[in-house]
């Protein structure tokens, strides 16, 4: 062992040198992502789609924190997304709250729902976790479905009409599509900063450790159950924010937002983009929604393409589009 150490000294230093620009990009990923998001609407077919990509990207990002970074597959994230959207909408429609307060309510809603589902589901594992989260989110679906006075039931919640928003005394026309885009983008960038901090923090290290080796993490003194629960709740904060932004963007909250197919969307987008990659969820959301948008222009059978692309990813690019790209660049 002592002899080996002399040989490997330069080896250890070498990769650091080779991928220096890659490392640099990695260190400033929030900055790069933000710059990209600011220019993004210019290349999109229409702004409302760009806003949707941001929002679904954020939703998938929240999911990815759990699945990509911690390795927990949830099929119930629609409940977190939907609760954020409904609570934000209800705050505006029924309580006349200002838009920023409503966003806070939405985020807190996502957090609270994640805590409730998490406490019940976190003890189960693997496939069972996926099933229990799905079942619990279906229960939440019917809960919101039945609360017609608050949610509008089947008809959805309407009237989340924010015409004008003021930020530090400046007034902006929220009906204007680009304004709407940049307001949403600002929140998404805040979320990216937050995620970046989480991943770099000691808790980020715990998440990696639990994903890598649960037994070892436990023996090292980590409470694995608590770690999962905290990650689930953090995930709920991101998804709740995404939901709140969705409510403001579309000015309605449809009950479909709680449907298990919405949970499936997060899975598909994360996997398409690249699980466990920082920017992958946005790539996944963009690819999914663009594919849906473009393909549905010339055929109503767009689901065939989406499904096929997804299968190809699972079979040949398990790291997803962004993950595979990163891997290529790294080499």
């Amino acid at each position, binding site marked *: 062992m002592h002899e080996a150490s002399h040989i490997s000294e330069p080896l250890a230093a070498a990769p650091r040198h080779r991928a220096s620009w890659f490392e640099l990009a990695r260190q400033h990923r929030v900055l790069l992502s933000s710059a990209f998001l600011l220019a993004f609407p210019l290349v999109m077919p229409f702004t409302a789609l760009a806003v949707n990509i941001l929002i679904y990207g954020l939703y998938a990002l929240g999911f990815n924190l759990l699945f990509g970074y911690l390795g927990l597959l949830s099929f119930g994230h629609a409940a977190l997304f939907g609760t954020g959207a409904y609570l934000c909408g209800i705050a505006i429609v029924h309580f006349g709250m200002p838009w920023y307060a409503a966003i806070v309510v939405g985020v807190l809603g996502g957090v609270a729902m994640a805590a409730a589902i998490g406490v019940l589901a976190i003890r*189960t594992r693997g496939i069972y976790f996926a099933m229990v989260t*799905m*079942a619990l989110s279906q229960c939440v679906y019917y809960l919101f479905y039945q609360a017609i006075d608050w949610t509008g039931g089947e008809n959805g919640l309407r009237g989340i009409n924010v015409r004008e928003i003021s930020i530090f005394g400046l007034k902006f026309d929220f009906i204007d599509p680009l304004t709407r885009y940049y307001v949403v983008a600002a929140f998404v960038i805040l979320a990216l900063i937050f995620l970046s901090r989480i991943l770099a923090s000691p808790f980020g290290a715990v998440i990696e450790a639990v994903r890598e080796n649960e037994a070892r993490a436990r023996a090292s003194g980590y409470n694995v159950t608590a770690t999962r629960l905290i990650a689930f709740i953090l995930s709920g904060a991101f998804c709740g924010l995404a939901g709140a932004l969705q409510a403001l963007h579309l000015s309605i909250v449809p009950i479909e937002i709680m449907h298990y197919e919405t949970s499936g969307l997060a899975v598909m987008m994360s996997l398409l983009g690249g699980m466990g990659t920082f920017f992958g969820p946005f790539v996944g959301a963009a690819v999914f929604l663009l594919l849906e948008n473009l393909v549905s222009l010339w055929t109503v059978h767009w689901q065939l393409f989406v499904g096929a692309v997804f299968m190809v990813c699972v079979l040949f690019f398990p790291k997803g589009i962004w993950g595979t790209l990163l891997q290529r660049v790294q080499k």
Partner: protein
Amino acid sequence: MAGLTLDLIGLQLFTGLALGAVYVLLAIGLSLIFGMLTVVNFAHGAFYMLGAYVGVYLLALGGNFWLCLVAVPIIVGTIGLVVERFLIRPLYGRGIDYPLLLTFGLSYVIVELVRIAFGKAGYPFDTPELLQGAVDIGIGYFPLYRLFVIAAAGVVLLGLWLFLERTSFGLIIRAGARDPQIVRVLGVDVARVWLVVFGIGTGIAALAGLLAAPLQGVIPEMGGPILVEAFVVTVVGGMGSLLGAVLAGLLVGVVVSLSSLFVPEMAKVSIFALMAIVLLIRPQGFFGRAGLMS
């Protein structure tokens, strides 16, 4: 609650059993596939739907319902074989999530292909003439076809049981479900066993779809909601347990039917609540093995 009588509740129980019979057939295939291959088949609902459509197609070609009962599982089962061989097999050893995700994508593809081939509107599926109408079962009138569905499910279960208990191939499957390692040690070609199991599972799902067709008609989306319910059944019964699938299937059928009698607004949520409760008390389901999922 006007008109609630014991007869009515009895009739409702019977209805629940008929409903449960379809759940059982779906769940048993899911469970078989999961128990052997540890694959959670998200395309199971799509195979169920495919069974109904193949039935529609065969009837249009001039076949009759009884012929379909035999041909449909064979045709769809064969498709299942192809899917296992070329799409799922490359994913073994990559963790439990990947086959799940693949079949999730596959379900989209199958549904859309059916829409292209058969259109979006769906087809009527008349109850076979011999089985039309209702019969008096002592407590009230009950549709003959529903009795037939219960009986057909029973026959399939009996056949499956005989196959598993009395044939050497069944013995291998049972051993493999307990411990795949043992089968490998015995020098059996595990890949072939898995292939066949997937084929049988999808074949039974297709049969369930065919049996359900006269009850609900046939549309491309018919596999979606029932897949979720079949998952509930498998999880409540214990993933991988055949006995669990049967008992939980009947239980879920009865719960749905009784809750829609007493608390209709809770009918849809009742089975999910049931599942959540079962899993919180007994995380591995009725007959599941603890720690299987770790």
